[in-house]
Protein backbone atom coordinates (compact mmCIF):
# COMPACT_ATOMS: atom_id res chain seq x y z
CA UNK A 1 0.00 0.00 0.00
CA UNK A 2 1.32 3.43 -0.87
CA UNK A 3 0.16 6.61 0.85
CA UNK A 4 1.22 10.25 0.76
CA UNK A 5 1.90 12.57 3.69
CA UNK A 6 0.44 16.02 3.10
CA UNK A 7 1.45 19.42 4.43
CA UNK A 8 -1.20 20.57 6.95
CA UNK A 9 -0.43 24.26 6.30
CA UNK A 10 1.15 26.47 3.67
CA UNK A 11 4.72 27.50 4.42
CA UNK A 12 8.29 26.30 4.17
CA UNK A 13 9.17 22.61 4.57
CA UNK A 14 12.21 21.52 6.54
CA UNK A 15 13.57 18.00 6.77
CA UNK A 16 15.80 18.83 9.77
CA UNK A 17 14.98 20.06 13.30
CA UNK A 18 17.75 22.70 12.93
CA UNK A 19 20.13 23.67 10.11
CA UNK A 20 23.13 22.00 11.79
CA UNK A 21 21.34 18.75 12.64
CA UNK A 22 20.73 15.59 10.61
CA UNK A 23 17.45 15.03 8.74
CA UNK A 24 14.54 13.45 10.62
CA UNK A 25 14.22 10.65 8.08
CA UNK A 26 16.00 9.46 4.93
CA UNK A 27 14.28 7.79 2.01
CA UNK A 28 13.98 4.10 2.86
CA UNK A 29 13.88 4.72 6.63
CA UNK A 30 11.26 2.92 8.68
CA UNK A 31 8.60 5.15 10.28
CA UNK A 32 6.10 4.46 13.03
CA UNK A 33 2.74 6.20 13.34
CA UNK A 34 3.40 9.56 15.04
CA UNK A 35 7.05 9.85 13.93
CA UNK A 36 8.06 13.33 12.85
CA UNK A 37 9.22 13.43 9.23
CA UNK A 38 9.70 17.19 8.91
CA UNK A 39 8.61 20.69 9.92
CA UNK A 40 6.44 23.27 8.21
CA UNK A 41 7.17 26.87 9.09
CA UNK A 42 4.16 29.14 8.75
CA UNK A 43 4.44 32.77 9.75
CA UNK A 44 7.51 32.10 11.90
CA UNK A 45 5.80 29.26 13.80
CA UNK A 46 6.93 25.65 13.36
CA UNK A 47 4.59 22.66 13.07
CA UNK A 48 5.72 19.04 13.12
CA UNK A 49 4.58 16.84 10.24
CA UNK A 50 3.94 13.31 11.48
CA UNK A 51 3.44 9.98 9.80
CA UNK A 52 -0.10 8.62 10.09
CA UNK A 53 0.88 4.97 9.79
CA UNK A 54 3.66 2.44 10.27
CA UNK A 55 5.83 1.69 7.22
CA UNK A 56 8.82 3.16 5.52
CA UNK A 57 9.52 6.25 3.46
CA UNK A 58 9.52 5.56 -0.25
CA UNK A 59 10.53 9.03 -1.43
CA UNK A 60 10.41 12.69 -0.41
CA UNK A 61 8.46 14.76 -2.93
CA UNK A 62 9.82 18.17 -1.86
CA UNK A 63 13.31 19.35 -0.98
CA UNK A 64 14.47 20.80 2.32
CA UNK A 65 13.46 24.52 2.52
CA UNK A 66 11.01 24.27 -0.39
CA UNK A 67 7.89 26.44 -0.20
CA UNK A 68 4.78 24.22 0.11
CA UNK A 69 1.01 24.69 -0.14
CA UNK A 70 -1.56 23.32 2.31
CA UNK A 71 -2.48 19.80 1.16
CA UNK A 72 0.64 19.40 -0.98
CA UNK A 73 2.15 15.88 -0.79
CA UNK A 74 5.49 15.95 1.05
CA UNK A 75 6.53 12.30 0.99
CA UNK A 76 5.38 8.91 -0.25
CA UNK A 77 5.09 6.16 2.31
CA UNK A 78 4.93 2.39 1.84
CA UNK A 79 2.91 0.54 4.44
Amino acid at each position, binding site marked *: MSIEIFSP*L*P*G*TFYRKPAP*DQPVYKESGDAVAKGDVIGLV*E*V*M*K*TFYEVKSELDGHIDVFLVEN*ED*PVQAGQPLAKLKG
Partner: protein
Amino acid sequence: MSIRKLLIANRGEIAVRIIRAARDLGIATVQAHSDADADSLAVRLADDAVNIGPPQAAKSYLNIKAIVEAAQEAGADAVHPGYGFLAESSHFADAVEAAGMAFVGPRGETIRMMGDKVAARTAAMNAGVPTVPGSDGRIDDVGETEKLAAEIGYPVMIKAAAGGGGRGIRIAHDAKEFAHFFQLAQTEASSAFGDGGLYVEKVIEDARHIEVQVLGDGTDVVHCFERECSLQRRRQKVWEEAPSMAVSPEARAMLCASAVALAKSVNYRGAGTLEYLYDDTTGDFYFIEMNTRIQVEHPVTEWITGIDLVAEMLRIAGGEPLRLKQDDIVSRGHAIEVRINAEDPANDFLPFPGVVGTLSVPGGPGVRFDTMLYSGYAIPPFYDSLLGKLIVWGDTREHAIDRLKGALSELDVPGVKTTVPLYTALAGDADVRANAVHTRWLEHWLESNAKQL
Protein backbone atom coordinates in the same frame (compact mmCIF):
# COMPACT_ATOMS: atom_id res chain seq x y z
CA MET B 1 23.10 65.74 0.54
CA SER B 2 19.43 64.87 0.72
CA ILE B 3 18.19 61.49 -0.45
CA ARG B 4 16.79 61.30 -4.00
CA LYS B 5 16.08 57.59 -4.40
CA LEU B 6 15.39 55.17 -1.56
CA LEU B 7 15.45 51.38 -1.63
CA ILE B 8 13.10 49.80 0.91
CA ALA B 9 14.68 46.60 2.25
CA ASN B 10 11.60 45.31 4.05
CA ARG B 11 8.01 44.26 3.35
CA GLY B 12 4.49 44.40 4.75
CA GLU B 13 2.92 47.38 6.45
CA ILE B 14 6.24 49.04 7.33
CA ALA B 15 7.31 49.08 3.67
CA VAL B 16 4.03 50.86 2.85
CA ARG B 17 4.66 53.29 5.72
CA ILE B 18 8.18 54.09 4.48
CA ILE B 19 6.99 54.61 0.88
CA ARG B 20 4.42 57.15 2.11
CA ALA B 21 6.98 59.08 4.16
CA ALA B 22 9.41 59.13 1.21
CA ARG B 23 6.68 60.32 -1.15
CA ASP B 24 5.90 63.22 1.21
CA LEU B 25 9.53 64.30 0.97
CA GLY B 26 9.72 63.98 -2.82
CA ILE B 27 12.00 60.92 -2.64
CA ALA B 28 11.65 58.26 -5.35
CA THR B 29 11.10 54.72 -4.01
CA VAL B 30 12.30 51.28 -5.07
CA GLN B 31 10.67 48.36 -3.29
CA ALA B 32 12.88 45.28 -2.85
CA HIS B 33 10.71 42.16 -2.81
CA SER B 34 10.87 38.37 -2.82
CA ASP B 35 9.08 36.12 -5.34
CA ALA B 36 6.24 35.79 -2.79
CA ASP B 37 5.71 39.56 -2.54
CA ALA B 38 5.48 40.51 -6.23
CA ASP B 39 1.79 41.35 -5.68
CA SER B 40 2.26 43.18 -2.38
CA LEU B 41 0.75 46.58 -1.67
CA ALA B 42 4.25 48.03 -1.19
CA VAL B 43 5.23 46.91 -4.71
CA ARG B 44 2.04 48.48 -6.07
CA LEU B 45 2.65 51.80 -4.30
CA ALA B 46 6.39 52.21 -4.90
CA ASP B 47 7.70 54.01 -7.97
CA ASP B 48 9.77 50.99 -8.88
CA ALA B 49 10.34 47.43 -7.64
CA VAL B 50 13.17 44.93 -7.79
CA ASN B 51 13.14 41.17 -7.12
CA ILE B 52 15.79 40.11 -4.60
CA GLY B 53 15.15 36.35 -4.44
CA PRO B 54 13.01 33.38 -3.38
CA PRO B 55 10.23 33.52 -0.76
CA GLN B 56 12.35 32.28 2.16
CA ALA B 57 13.61 35.34 4.04
CA ALA B 58 17.12 33.88 4.37
CA LYS B 59 17.38 33.97 0.58
CA SER B 60 15.81 37.41 0.04
CA TYR B 61 15.10 39.89 2.86
CA LEU B 62 18.13 38.65 4.82
CA ASN B 63 20.43 38.44 1.79
CA ILE B 64 22.77 41.41 2.27
CA LYS B 65 24.62 40.92 -1.00
CA ALA B 66 21.45 40.69 -3.10
CA ILE B 67 19.93 43.77 -1.47
CA VAL B 68 23.04 45.96 -1.76
CA GLU B 69 23.47 44.96 -5.41
CA ALA B 70 19.80 45.65 -6.15
CA ALA B 71 20.07 49.08 -4.53
CA GLN B 72 23.17 49.94 -6.58
CA GLU B 73 21.64 48.74 -9.82
CA ALA B 74 18.49 50.76 -9.14
CA GLY B 75 20.58 53.87 -8.58
CA ALA B 76 19.40 54.30 -4.98
CA ASP B 77 21.39 56.62 -2.73
CA ALA B 78 19.86 55.33 0.52
CA VAL B 79 18.42 52.12 2.04
CA HIS B 80 15.71 51.96 4.72
CA PRO B 81 15.77 48.65 6.63
CA GLY B 82 12.38 48.99 8.41
CA TYR B 83 12.14 46.73 11.48
CA GLY B 84 13.02 43.04 11.82
CA PHE B 85 15.02 41.34 9.02
CA LEU B 86 18.31 43.32 8.67
CA ALA B 87 17.25 46.43 10.62
CA GLU B 88 19.63 45.66 13.47
CA SER B 89 22.40 44.03 11.45
CA SER B 90 25.62 46.03 11.81
CA HIS B 91 27.00 44.08 8.83
CA PHE B 92 24.15 45.32 6.67
CA ALA B 93 24.59 48.94 7.81
CA ASP B 94 28.33 48.67 7.09
CA ALA B 95 27.74 47.06 3.67
CA VAL B 96 25.25 49.76 2.61
CA GLU B 97 27.63 52.55 3.60
CA ALA B 98 30.66 50.79 2.06
CA ALA B 99 28.71 50.73 -1.22
CA GLY B 100 28.43 54.52 -1.03
CA MET B 101 24.76 54.72 0.06
CA ALA B 102 23.17 56.14 3.21
CA PHE B 103 21.83 53.63 5.73
CA VAL B 104 18.63 55.01 7.27
CA GLY B 105 19.59 54.25 10.84
CA PRO B 106 22.56 54.46 13.17
CA ARG B 107 26.17 53.69 12.26
CA GLY B 108 27.18 50.02 12.23
CA GLU B 109 29.30 50.48 15.35
CA THR B 110 26.30 51.84 17.33
CA ILE B 111 24.16 48.88 16.24
CA ARG B 112 26.95 46.51 17.25
CA MET B 113 27.31 48.04 20.69
CA MET B 114 23.60 48.21 21.47
CA GLY B 115 23.05 44.71 20.06
CA ASP B 116 25.45 43.33 22.67
CA LYS B 117 23.23 43.46 25.75
CA VAL B 118 26.20 43.59 28.12
CA ALA B 119 27.85 46.49 26.25
CA ALA B 120 24.48 48.31 26.15
CA ARG B 121 24.06 47.83 29.89
CA THR B 122 27.56 49.18 30.50
CA ALA B 123 26.85 52.20 28.27
CA ALA B 124 23.66 52.83 30.27
CA MET B 125 25.48 52.64 33.61
CA ASN B 126 28.18 55.01 32.30
CA ALA B 127 25.48 57.50 31.26
CA GLY B 128 23.93 57.33 34.74
CA VAL B 129 20.85 55.40 33.58
CA PRO B 130 19.44 52.94 36.14
CA THR B 131 19.75 49.29 35.08
CA VAL B 132 18.18 46.18 36.57
CA PRO B 133 20.33 45.00 39.52
CA GLY B 134 22.63 42.27 38.23
CA SER B 135 26.09 41.43 36.98
CA ASP B 136 28.27 44.32 35.80
CA GLY B 137 29.24 42.47 32.67
CA ARG B 138 29.60 39.01 31.22
CA ILE B 139 29.97 36.25 33.74
CA ASP B 140 31.90 33.04 33.38
CA ASP B 141 32.34 31.56 36.82
CA VAL B 142 29.22 29.85 38.14
CA GLY B 143 30.36 29.94 41.79
CA GLU B 144 31.06 33.64 41.84
CA THR B 145 27.82 34.37 40.03
CA GLU B 146 25.85 32.26 42.45
CA LYS B 147 27.07 34.56 45.23
CA LEU B 148 25.94 37.58 43.22
CA ALA B 149 22.53 36.02 42.53
CA ALA B 150 22.02 35.45 46.26
CA GLU B 151 22.97 39.08 46.89
CA ILE B 152 20.50 40.59 44.42
CA GLY B 153 17.86 38.09 45.52
CA TYR B 154 16.00 35.29 43.71
CA PRO B 155 14.31 34.93 41.30
CA VAL B 156 17.00 36.01 38.83
CA MET B 157 17.13 35.91 35.05
CA ILE B 158 20.06 34.31 33.24
CA LYS B 159 20.26 36.03 29.86
CA ALA B 160 22.37 35.53 26.75
CA ALA B 161 24.54 38.55 25.91
CA ALA B 162 23.75 38.04 22.23
CA GLY B 163 20.03 37.34 22.78
CA GLY B 164 17.08 39.70 22.44
CA GLY B 165 13.38 39.82 21.67
CA GLY B 166 12.74 37.54 24.62
CA ARG B 167 15.03 34.76 23.37
CA GLY B 168 17.81 33.23 25.45
CA ILE B 169 16.27 33.85 28.89
CA ARG B 170 15.97 31.45 31.84
CA ILE B 171 14.60 32.23 35.29
CA ALA B 172 16.15 30.60 38.38
CA HIS B 173 14.28 30.61 41.70
CA ASP B 174 17.06 29.27 43.94
CA ALA B 175 20.75 28.36 44.00
CA LYS B 176 20.15 24.78 42.86
CA GLU B 177 18.16 25.88 39.81
CA PHE B 178 20.74 28.56 39.17
CA ALA B 179 23.63 26.11 38.87
CA HIS B 180 21.59 23.85 36.60
CA PHE B 181 20.25 26.61 34.31
CA PHE B 182 23.61 28.34 34.10
CA GLN B 183 25.19 25.35 32.33
CA LEU B 184 22.17 24.91 30.06
CA ALA B 185 22.03 28.59 29.18
CA GLN B 186 25.72 28.62 28.27
CA THR B 187 25.32 25.70 25.86
CA GLU B 188 22.11 27.13 24.40
CA ALA B 189 23.56 30.59 23.91
CA SER B 190 26.62 29.34 22.07
CA SER B 191 24.55 27.16 19.75
CA ALA B 192 21.73 29.69 19.16
CA PHE B 193 23.76 32.90 18.95
CA GLY B 194 27.35 31.68 18.39
CA ASP B 195 28.26 33.42 21.64
CA GLY B 196 28.03 31.68 25.00
CA GLY B 197 28.31 34.96 26.97
CA LEU B 198 25.78 35.30 29.80
CA TYR B 199 24.71 37.93 32.31
CA VAL B 200 22.38 37.93 35.27
CA GLU B 201 19.53 40.29 36.21
CA LYS B 202 17.02 40.48 39.02
CA VAL B 203 13.43 39.61 38.03
CA ILE B 204 11.19 42.64 38.52
CA GLU B 205 7.80 41.10 39.24
CA ASP B 206 4.63 42.53 37.74
CA ALA B 207 6.50 45.37 36.07
CA ARG B 208 5.23 47.55 33.29
CA HIS B 209 7.02 47.88 29.95
CA ILE B 210 7.74 51.53 29.27
CA GLU B 211 9.89 52.78 26.40
CA VAL B 212 11.15 56.17 25.30
CA GLN B 213 11.33 57.29 21.67
CA VAL B 214 14.41 59.30 20.73
CA LEU B 215 15.66 61.03 17.58
CA GLY B 216 19.32 61.88 17.14
CA ASP B 217 21.45 63.43 14.39
CA GLY B 218 24.80 62.11 15.62
CA THR B 219 25.30 65.08 17.94
CA ASP B 220 22.01 66.23 19.40
CA VAL B 221 19.24 64.02 20.73
CA VAL B 222 15.61 64.78 21.56
CA HIS B 223 12.96 62.52 23.08
CA CYS B 224 9.35 62.18 21.92
CA PHE B 225 8.03 60.98 25.27
CA GLU B 226 7.22 57.43 26.30
CA ARG B 227 5.00 54.54 25.23
CA GLU B 228 3.57 51.81 27.42
CA CYS B 229 3.48 48.28 26.00
CA SER B 230 2.60 46.15 29.03
CA LEU B 231 0.06 43.99 27.22
CA GLN B 232 2.23 41.21 25.82
CA ARG B 233 1.91 37.59 24.85
CA ARG B 234 5.05 35.43 24.86
CA ARG B 235 7.06 38.66 25.24
CA GLN B 236 5.53 40.02 22.02
CA LYS B 237 3.67 43.32 22.33
CA VAL B 238 0.07 43.28 21.18
CA TRP B 239 -1.35 46.61 22.43
CA GLU B 240 0.66 49.80 22.83
CA GLU B 241 -0.22 53.28 23.98
CA ALA B 242 1.14 56.76 24.57
CA PRO B 243 1.48 58.39 26.97
CA SER B 244 1.73 55.89 29.83
CA MET B 245 -0.89 56.69 32.45
CA ALA B 246 1.18 54.80 35.03
CA VAL B 247 4.10 57.25 35.25
CA SER B 248 3.95 60.50 37.18
CA PRO B 249 5.11 63.74 35.53
CA GLU B 250 8.25 63.60 37.68
CA ALA B 251 9.02 59.99 36.74
CA ARG B 252 8.34 60.84 33.07
CA ALA B 253 10.82 63.72 33.17
CA MET B 254 13.51 61.50 34.70
CA LEU B 255 12.82 58.62 32.32
CA CYS B 256 12.99 60.80 29.22
CA ALA B 257 16.08 62.67 30.43
CA SER B 258 17.85 59.36 31.06
CA ALA B 259 17.03 58.17 27.53
CA VAL B 260 18.44 61.37 26.02
CA ALA B 261 21.58 61.08 28.18
CA LEU B 262 22.23 57.51 27.04
CA ALA B 263 21.54 58.22 23.34
CA LYS B 264 23.74 61.31 23.47
CA SER B 265 26.57 59.40 25.13
CA VAL B 266 26.77 57.12 22.06
CA ASN B 267 26.27 60.00 19.55
CA TYR B 268 23.07 58.33 18.39
CA ARG B 269 21.90 58.91 14.83
CA GLY B 270 18.34 58.18 13.63
CA ALA B 271 15.23 56.97 15.45
CA GLY B 272 15.72 54.72 18.43
CA THR B 273 13.86 53.34 21.41
CA LEU B 274 15.10 52.75 24.94
CA GLU B 275 13.15 50.08 26.74
CA TYR B 276 12.62 50.09 30.50
CA LEU B 277 10.87 48.11 33.16
CA TYR B 278 8.81 50.29 35.48
CA ASP B 279 7.92 49.21 38.98
CA ASP B 280 4.58 50.80 39.93
CA THR B 281 4.96 50.06 43.57
CA THR B 282 8.27 51.89 44.01
CA GLY B 283 8.28 54.26 41.02
CA ASP B 284 11.70 52.88 40.02
CA PHE B 285 12.62 52.34 36.39
CA TYR B 286 15.36 50.18 34.93
CA PHE B 287 16.89 50.26 31.42
CA ILE B 288 16.70 46.89 29.66
CA GLU B 289 17.73 47.45 26.05
CA MET B 290 17.86 49.84 23.14
CA ASN B 291 16.31 49.13 19.74
CA THR B 292 18.30 50.91 17.06
CA ARG B 293 15.50 51.16 14.47
CA ILE B 294 11.94 52.32 13.92
CA GLN B 295 9.50 50.25 15.99
CA VAL B 296 6.18 48.69 15.07
CA GLU B 297 4.39 50.88 17.61
CA HIS B 298 5.86 54.22 16.45
CA PRO B 299 2.47 55.60 15.28
CA VAL B 300 1.17 56.18 18.83
CA THR B 301 4.07 58.56 19.42
CA GLU B 302 3.46 60.20 16.05
CA TRP B 303 -0.12 60.84 17.01
CA ILE B 304 0.45 62.47 20.39
CA THR B 305 3.37 64.60 19.12
CA GLY B 306 2.38 65.29 15.50
CA ILE B 307 5.85 64.20 14.33
CA ASP B 308 6.35 61.94 11.28
CA LEU B 309 9.12 59.77 12.73
CA VAL B 310 9.88 57.96 9.47
CA ALA B 311 10.22 61.26 7.60
CA GLU B 312 12.56 62.55 10.33
CA MET B 313 14.68 59.38 9.91
CA LEU B 314 14.94 60.09 6.17
CA ARG B 315 15.93 63.72 6.74
CA ILE B 316 18.61 62.71 9.26
CA ALA B 317 19.97 60.02 6.91
CA GLY B 318 20.13 62.70 4.21
CA GLY B 319 22.48 64.68 6.43
CA GLU B 320 20.10 67.27 7.91
CA PRO B 321 20.56 68.29 11.54
CA LEU B 322 17.59 67.69 13.87
CA ARG B 323 14.78 70.08 12.96
CA LEU B 324 13.08 69.72 16.30
CA LYS B 325 14.13 71.34 19.55
CA GLN B 326 13.05 69.59 22.73
CA ASP B 327 10.77 72.48 23.69
CA ASP B 328 8.92 72.19 20.34
CA ILE B 329 7.84 68.63 21.15
CA VAL B 330 4.62 68.50 23.11
CA SER B 331 2.24 65.67 23.85
CA ARG B 332 -1.50 65.95 23.27
CA GLY B 333 -4.28 63.47 24.04
CA HIS B 334 -3.93 59.69 24.11
CA ALA B 335 -3.16 57.16 21.36
CA ILE B 336 -3.55 53.36 21.31
CA GLU B 337 -2.30 50.85 18.74
CA VAL B 338 -3.37 47.23 18.41
CA ARG B 339 -1.57 44.74 16.18
CA ILE B 340 -3.89 43.00 13.75
CA ASN B 341 -2.30 39.59 13.18
CA ALA B 342 -3.40 36.71 10.95
CA GLU B 343 -3.83 34.43 13.97
CA ASP B 344 -6.77 32.68 15.57
CA PRO B 345 -6.84 33.92 19.20
CA ALA B 346 -9.38 31.24 20.18
CA ASN B 347 -7.08 28.48 18.91
CA ASP B 348 -3.76 29.23 20.63
CA PHE B 349 -3.03 31.99 18.08
CA LEU B 350 -2.65 29.53 15.22
CA PRO B 351 -1.25 31.39 12.18
CA PHE B 352 -3.87 31.87 9.50
CA PRO B 353 -2.56 32.86 6.07
CA GLY B 354 -5.19 33.01 3.34
CA VAL B 355 -6.88 35.08 0.67
CA VAL B 356 -8.59 38.28 1.81
CA GLY B 357 -12.16 38.82 0.61
CA THR B 358 -13.67 42.29 0.36
CA LEU B 359 -11.83 44.30 2.97
CA SER B 360 -13.69 46.80 5.19
CA VAL B 361 -11.44 49.40 6.74
CA PRO B 362 -12.41 51.69 9.65
CA GLY B 363 -12.25 55.46 9.38
CA GLY B 364 -13.45 58.73 10.86
CA PRO B 365 -11.86 61.15 13.31
CA GLY B 366 -9.03 59.76 15.41
CA VAL B 367 -8.66 56.52 13.42
CA ARG B 368 -5.61 55.39 11.42
CA PHE B 369 -5.10 51.98 9.84
CA ASP B 370 -1.57 51.13 8.64
CA THR B 371 -1.80 47.92 6.67
CA MET B 372 -0.42 45.81 3.84
CA LEU B 373 -3.87 44.42 3.00
CA TYR B 374 -6.13 44.98 0.01
CA SER B 375 -9.22 43.11 -1.18
CA GLY B 376 -8.23 39.86 -2.91
CA TYR B 377 -4.68 39.85 -1.47
CA ALA B 378 -3.19 36.39 -0.87
CA ILE B 379 -1.30 36.64 2.44
CA PRO B 380 1.94 34.69 2.03
CA PRO B 381 2.81 32.14 4.76
CA PHE B 382 6.54 32.89 4.72
CA TYR B 383 6.72 35.93 6.96
CA ASP B 384 5.34 37.12 10.29
CA SER B 385 1.61 37.36 10.86
CA LEU B 386 1.28 41.15 11.20
CA LEU B 387 -1.36 42.35 8.73
CA GLY B 388 -1.66 45.88 9.96
CA LYS B 389 -2.03 48.17 12.93
CA LEU B 390 -5.15 49.95 14.04
CA ILE B 391 -4.26 53.20 15.77
CA VAL B 392 -6.78 55.48 17.49
CA TRP B 393 -6.51 58.84 19.17
CA GLY B 394 -8.77 60.50 21.76
CA ASP B 395 -8.66 63.47 24.13
CA THR B 396 -8.34 61.01 27.00
CA ARG B 397 -7.46 57.33 27.37
CA GLU B 398 -11.13 56.46 27.85
CA HIS B 399 -12.08 58.36 24.72
CA ALA B 400 -9.36 56.49 22.80
CA ILE B 401 -10.61 53.10 24.06
CA ASP B 402 -14.18 53.97 23.03
CA ARG B 403 -12.96 54.94 19.57
CA LEU B 404 -10.98 51.69 19.41
CA LYS B 405 -14.15 49.69 20.04
CA GLY B 406 -15.97 51.54 17.29
CA ALA B 407 -13.11 51.19 14.82
CA LEU B 408 -12.74 47.45 15.54
CA SER B 409 -16.43 47.00 14.77
CA GLU B 410 -15.87 48.56 11.33
CA LEU B 411 -12.81 46.42 10.51
CA ASP B 412 -13.55 43.24 8.58
CA VAL B 413 -10.96 40.99 6.95
CA PRO B 414 -13.08 38.19 5.43
CA GLY B 415 -11.36 34.91 4.62
CA VAL B 416 -8.83 35.16 7.42
CA LYS B 417 -8.93 34.76 11.21
CA THR B 418 -7.43 37.77 12.96
CA THR B 419 -6.75 39.05 16.46
CA VAL B 420 -9.65 41.56 16.20
CA PRO B 421 -11.84 39.59 18.70
CA LEU B 422 -9.02 39.76 21.27
CA TYR B 423 -8.95 43.56 21.12
CA THR B 424 -12.72 43.88 21.20
CA ALA B 425 -12.70 41.87 24.44
CA LEU B 426 -9.76 43.78 25.90
CA ALA B 427 -11.35 47.15 25.10
CA GLY B 428 -14.29 46.10 27.29
CA ASP B 429 -12.22 44.60 30.11
CA ALA B 430 -12.36 46.35 33.49
CA ASP B 431 -8.63 45.90 34.24
CA VAL B 432 -7.62 47.25 30.84
CA ARG B 433 -9.97 50.21 31.25
CA ALA B 434 -8.52 50.87 34.71
CA ASN B 435 -4.99 50.36 33.31
CA ALA B 436 -4.35 47.81 36.08
CA VAL B 437 -1.98 45.69 33.97
CA HIS B 438 1.62 44.46 33.87
CA THR B 439 3.71 42.46 31.41
CA ARG B 440 2.30 39.09 32.48
CA TRP B 441 -1.33 40.23 32.84
CA LEU B 442 -2.42 39.25 29.32
CA GLU B 443 -1.13 35.67 29.54
CA HIS B 444 -3.10 35.14 32.78
CA TRP B 445 -6.16 36.71 31.20
CA LEU B 446 -5.89 34.47 28.13
CA GLU B 447 -5.79 31.34 30.29
CA SER B 448 -9.39 31.94 31.30
CA ASN B 449 -10.71 34.02 28.38
CA ALA B 450 -9.05 32.79 25.16
CA LYS B 451 -11.66 30.13 24.42
CA GLN B 452 -14.48 32.69 24.36
CA LEU B 453 -12.78 34.87 21.74
